[in-house]
């Protein structure tokens, strides 16, 4: 009775015990137990890693049930911990750490002012893009509806990059829905349980997304690596691709809507494992290690949302007004207080009726008229081609014209 020796197996006794099953089982019960446990888990692994019939559900029903039970048991603890942590964090950020709020407020106001100026130009570009896409028959997917969720847990492993959020199938979530923040793409839903869901981040080694490089419009596939990085590995060397180029979702994977920011090209180097391809490392737009709140895209639509359309229309109107102000003479700027007073001033103060014809602006009378002044030239119907004009002075003869030579 004892334990099997490590590296000192007594083969004679081993074969002797094989002939006596009970003695064999007794002597090697520990090793046999380990082998049985390993064998059972290996079989379970083999069953799991088979290609799933439904891509939206990577786990089989039994595995999914096990995960759901475990998540249900763990979620309350995660919620409590998250609530305590966020409460302490908010207490600190809301009441204690207010040192830079005034400066931040000033910076944000300046940023808003800059963005208002850029907004009009972007709106026109967007309209132009939509017109061109309509001409080419493209259908673009816009984010239609989203569900906000809080991150309450992580995988806690370096092999997987999975987040746990506090919304599940009861909130309308389904597997393979895209998860984003205001900065860009976070990942997609992997397992969805009744009250929680697991988000597979884009830097997980099993994650992938169809992307397009913003400037060069090169399409590629983005994948996560074991080290938690994000890289494009299916492109050959191309001198047009430079660090700093923005990477957007292409919409081709049917998971992420088109045009969402994914990150920025960080470095480009030859891929030693897959020649002649290059390993283009991408810095994610979202700090994936510090995600607190996310938006799950629950629906997309072919047109913009009504609110977005209103914003776009307002921006378009503002832009049109800005263009008119730049191109037309400013009739109101030149009005003197005297001209604006009296009857005219009363008329100017009265807003025009909705159906009134548009007022054509008239230029102010010239102080020193010449032949270019308005009204000094007779109508074209009274003019004769080739006739000398008595009203126009002859052109000045500065010097005699040289004769044409043949």
């Amino acid at each position, binding site marked *: 009775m004892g334990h099997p020796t490590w590296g000192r197996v007594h083969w004679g006794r081993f074969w002797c015990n094989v002939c006596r099953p009970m003695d064999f089982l007794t002597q090697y019960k520990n090793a046999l137990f380990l082998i049985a446990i390993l064998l059972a888990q290996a079989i379970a692994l083999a069953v799991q890693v088979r290609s799933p019939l439904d891509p939206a559900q990577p786990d089989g029903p039994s595995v999914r049930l096990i995960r759901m039970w475990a998540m249900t048991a763990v979620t309350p603890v995660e919620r409590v911990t998250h609530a305590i942590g966020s409460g302490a964090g908010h207490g600190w950020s809301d009441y204690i750490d207010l040192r830079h709020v005034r400066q931040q407020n000033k910076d944000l106001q300046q940023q808003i002012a800059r963005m208002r100026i850029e907004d009009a130009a972007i709106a026109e570009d967007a309209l132009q893009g939509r017109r061109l896409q309509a001409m080419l028959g493209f259908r673009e997917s816009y984010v239609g509806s989203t569900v906000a969720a809080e991150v309450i847990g992580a995988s806690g492993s370096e092999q997987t990059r999975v987040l*746990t959020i506090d919304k599940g199938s009861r909130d309308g979530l389904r597997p393979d829905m895209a998860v984003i923040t205001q900065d860009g793409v976070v990942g997609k839903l992997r397992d969805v349980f009744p009250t929680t869901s697991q988000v597979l981040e884009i830097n997980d080694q099993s994650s992938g997304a169809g992307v397009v490089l913003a400037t060069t419009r090169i399409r590629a596939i983005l994948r996560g690596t074991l080290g938690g990085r994000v890289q494009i590995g299916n492109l050959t060397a191309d001198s047009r691709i430079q660090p700093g180029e923005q990477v957007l979702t292409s919409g081709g994977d049917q998971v992420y809507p088109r045009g969402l920011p994914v990150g920025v090209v960080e470095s480009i180097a030859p891929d030693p494992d897959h020649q002649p391809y290059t390993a283009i490392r991408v810095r994610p737009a979202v700090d994936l290690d510090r995600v607190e709140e996310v938006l799950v895209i629950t629906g997309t639509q072919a047109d913009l949302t009504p609110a977005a359309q209103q914003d776009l229309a307002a921006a378009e109107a503002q832009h049109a007004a800005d263009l008119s102000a730049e191109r037309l003479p400013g009739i109101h700027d030149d009005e003197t207080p005297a001209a604006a007073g009296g009857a005219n001033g009363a008329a100017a103060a009265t807003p025009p009726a909705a159906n009134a014809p548009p007022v054509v602006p008239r230029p102010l009378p010239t102080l020193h008229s010449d032949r270019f002044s308005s009204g000094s030239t007779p109508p074209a119907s009274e003019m004769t081609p080739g006739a000398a004009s008595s009203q126009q002075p002859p052109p000045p003869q500065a010097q005699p014209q040289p004769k044409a030579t043949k």
Partner: protein
Amino acid sequence: MMVTRSYMSRREVEQQSFSLSVTIFVPLGAVLLQVLLPRVFHGLAVLDLPFIATLFFAISRRSPIAGTVTGAAIGLLQDVLTGQPIGVNGMAKSVIGYAGASLGSRIDVENTKTRALLTFGFSLVQSVLLYLIERRLLGIRAFHLLWLHELLRAAANTAVALPVCLLLDRAKHQE
């Protein structure tokens, strides 16, 4: 026969047990902390608290079957929560539990230096086991073993394991 009797006597004398609450809640707490701590600081994902719990219970109980069961249970729970295929950590920690218990019955595991050496060594063994499972069994070609990273992980696990084990030593029941 004398050697065998002496060996059995020593094992039985030094075999230690834990209360039911410690047996259940310490591994559960280790797995939960493993899930929660990287939310606070992502660098803490380098630690493997379930591994530390597995090794501590295995070398304390000195029963290979108990060590295997403990390792399998902790590893499987870790797999369920991390989204990995169920069995990856389960298999690795089963072997760690078995080997830890087998070794724990032969050497003095109460010594701090021995404990540090065991934790460091078994952490590397677990990294190799995970590599074999991911690369060979699951066929994930992108899985690489970064030795420097694994050495750092083993050092971090050892640094955390020593005070944790000293704390958990108070929960032992000598038999």
